[in-house]
C-alpha cells in the first residue's frame, strides 16, 4: 500500500458520502467503526444513576466488524481483530467487502477500537504510510480520541471535529432544534438542572397518565434513559438524582411523554460541506424498551409520510450545517398509533447500524425491491464456533451468491458470536444478519428458521 491507487469515481452510497465530506467521490477512506462513541462524548457530563455501566462490552466492541461492508476496493478498515478467514471468503463470494483490513496490534476487548489503534505502533506506521492527500480517517463518530488518532496516523478527519460532533449529538440539541423549527414534537421538555427535571416530571408524569421517558442528553444509544410509569417512580428517580446532584445541580436531560406507536422509523441523509442535504434511506427501526433490535426495509409508509420525512431532513440538515456539521446523519422518528408522524425524536450525527447496510443493500438487495430484515441472533454458545459451523447450521438458508431476487440470510457480523467467549466472559454470543425475502412475512419466517438452526448449533458441546 505504499503506492496507493485511487479508483475512478465510483457510484453509490460511499461515493456520495465521500463527495459530501471531501468533495472527491474517489477519495480513500480509512473506516474506523468506533461504536459507542457516545460514551466518550458523555464523559464528565452529569448522568442518570447507573447508566455508566457497560454490559457485554466485549461483544459490543466487536460490532465494529460491520465496517468491512462499507469499504470500496481502495478503502481501508481498521479492526480490533483480523476477519475470520472463512467469513472473509464468504463476504468475498458475495462481493460484499472489498477493502483492505488492518488490525490493531493488540485487541483489548473492553477498550474501544480507537484506543486500541492509538496503542498500536505497527498499525500507526501503516496508517501514516497511506497519507497521500486523498486519504481520510472516517470514524463512525468523532470524539477527542478519534482526533488524537487522526493526528497520530497523519491522516485528516473526513468529517468535523469532536466539539461540533458532541454538540450536535446531544438530545438537548435535537429537542431544541425540533422546537425552533416547528417540527411536530412529542410533548415534553428540555431540562438542564435537577430542578427543571422535577418541574418537567410534575407537569408530564401524572397519575393514570402516559408514561414518561427521561433521556440523558449524551447517553449511550438505548441505555442512558429510564421509563417512568407513574408519579411514584418519578419521585423515586428525583430522590436518587438529588442524592447525587452536583453543586451546580446541572443535569442535561430530555423528558418526553410516551407515545403509543405504529412504528419506529430511522432515516438517513447526507449533509455536504456546501450545505446540500441529500436523503438516503428510511427504514422501520425495531426496538424493545428503546433498545435497538434491528431494521425492516422498505418501510410501510405512504408517499406523503415519506415526503414529510424528506422535508424534515432538509430542515434538520440545514441546521446541522449551520452548526458546522457535515456527513451522515441518522434521525429517529416515530409514527404514532393515532397516525401522527413525529419526524425527529433524536438526531445521531454519526453512522449507525443502518449506515453499514447502505452499500450492501444497493449491491445485493435489489435496490429496494427486496424486503430485508436486519436482525440479531442472541445465542448461548458453550464454546467458540467457526464460520464453517454457522454456514453448515444455516445450510440452504444462508445467502451465498449475488442474486437479483435474493432470498436467504446474509451474515453481516460474525465477530460478535465469539467475542465474549474469547474474552473469557459468559456464554453469550450474537450474530448479526440480514434476512432477505419477498415480503415481511417471508423474512420473519426466515428469521425464525435461522434462529432455530443457530440455537441447535450453539447447544452442541
Amino acid at each position, binding site marked *: 500500500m505504499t503506492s496507493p491507487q485511487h479508483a475512478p469515481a465510483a457510484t453509490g452510497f460511499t461515493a456520495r458520502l465521500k463527495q459530501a465530506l471531501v468533495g472527491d467521490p474517489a477519495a480513500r477512506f480509512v473506516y474506523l467503526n468506533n461504536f459507542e462513541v457516545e460514551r466518550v462524548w458523555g464523559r464528565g457530563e452529569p448522568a*442518570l*444513576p*447507573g*447508566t*455508566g*455501566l*457497560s*454490559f457485554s*462490552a466485549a461483544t459490543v466492541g466487536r460490532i465494529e466488524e460491520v465496517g468491512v461492508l462499507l469499504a470500496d476496493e481502495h478503502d481501508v478498515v481498521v479492526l480490533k481483530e483480523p476477519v475470520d478467514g472463512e467469513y472473509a471468503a464468504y463476504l468475498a463470494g458475495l462481493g460484499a467487502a472489498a477493502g483492505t483490513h488492518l488490525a490493531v496490534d493488540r485487541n483489548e476487548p473492553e477498550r474501544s477500537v480507537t484506543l486500541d489503534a492509538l496503542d498500536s505502533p505497527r498499525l500507526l506506521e501503516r496508517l501514516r504510510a497511506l497519507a497521500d492527500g486523498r486519504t481520510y480517517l472516517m470514524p463512525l463518530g468523532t470524539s477527542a480520541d478519534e482526533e488524537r488518532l487522526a493526528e497520530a496516523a497523519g491522516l485528516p478527519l473526513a468529517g468535523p471535529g469532536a466539539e461540533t460532533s458532541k454538540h450536535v449529538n446531544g438530545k438537548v440539541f435535537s429537542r431544541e432544534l425540533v422546537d425552533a423549527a416547528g417540527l411536530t414534537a412529542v410533548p415534553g421538555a428540555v431540562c438542564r438542572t435537577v430542578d427543571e427535571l422535577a418541574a418537567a416530571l410534575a407537569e408530564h408524569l401524572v397519575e393514570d397518565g402516559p408514561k414518561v421517558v427521561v433521556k440523558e442528553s449524551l447517553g449511550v444509544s*438505548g*441505555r442512558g*434513559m*429510564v*421509563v417512568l410509569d407513574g408519579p411514584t*417512580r418519578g419521585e*423515586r*428517580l428525583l*430522590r*436518587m438524582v438529588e*442524592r447525587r446532584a452536583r453543586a451546580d445541580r446541572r443535569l442535561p436531560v430530555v423528558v418526553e411523554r410516551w407515545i403509543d406507536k405504529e412504528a419506529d422509523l430511522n432515516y438517513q441523509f447526507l449533509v455536504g460541506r456546501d450545505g446540500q442535504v441529500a436523503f438516503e434511506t428510511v427504514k422501520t427501526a425495531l426496538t*424493545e*424498551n*428503546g*433498545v435497538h433490535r434491528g431494521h425492516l426495509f422498505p418501510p410501510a409508509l405512504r408517499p406523503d409520510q415519506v415526503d414529510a420525512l424528506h422535508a424534515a431532513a432538509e430542515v434538520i440538515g440545514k441546521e446541522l450545517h449551520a452548526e458546522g456539521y457535515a456527513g451522515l446523519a441518522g434521525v429517529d422518528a416515530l409514527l404514532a398509533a393515532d397516525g401522527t408522524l413525529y419526524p425527529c425524536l433524536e438526531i445521531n450525527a454519526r453512522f449507525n447500524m443502518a449506515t453499514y447496510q447502505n452499500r450492501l443493500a444497493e449491491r445485493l438487495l435489489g435496490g429496494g425491491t427486496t424486503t430485508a430484515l436486519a436482525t440479531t441472533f442472541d445465542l*448461548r454458545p458453550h464454546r467458540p464456533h467457526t464460520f464453517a459451523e454457522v454456514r453448515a447450521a444455516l445450510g440452504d438458508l444462508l445467502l451465498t451468491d449475488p442474486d437479483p431476487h435474493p432470498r436467504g440470510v446474509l451474515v453481516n457480523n460474525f465477530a460478535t458470536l465469539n467475542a465474549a467467549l474469547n474474552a473469557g466472559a*459468559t456464554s*453469550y454470543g450474537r450474530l448479526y444478519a440480514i434476512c432477505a425475502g419477498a415480503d415481511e412475512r417471508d423474512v420473519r419466517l426466515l428469521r425464525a428458521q435461522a434462529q432455530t438452526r443457530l440455537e441447535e448449533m450453539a447447544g452442541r458441546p
Partner: protein
Amino acid sequence: MTGTDGATTGALQDALAEVLNKDLPDLTPTTRLFGDLGLDSTSVIELLMALEDRLGLVIDPDELTPEAFETVGALTGYLDACRPGHEPAR
C-alpha cells in the same frame, strides 16, 4: 442463601418482580439477571431505585461494575456490603 441474609434476597426478589413486571421463580445465588430473568440494561436504573427504597440504602453506581449484575449472588453480596454496619459475608 449462603453469604447473605434472607432480607436482601427477598428485597431483590420483590424489586426484580416490580421492575420486570412479572412473577419470578425463586431466586438462587446462581440465577443470572440478564440471561435467566430477562433484565436489560435500560431496567438497571429502575432496579437500583427499587432496591434503594426497599433496603433503605444508597447505592453508588460509580462503584458498581457489570459483574455485580451477573448473578443474584453477586448482587446480594454487593448490596450487603453497602449496608452500614453489616458484617461482610465470609
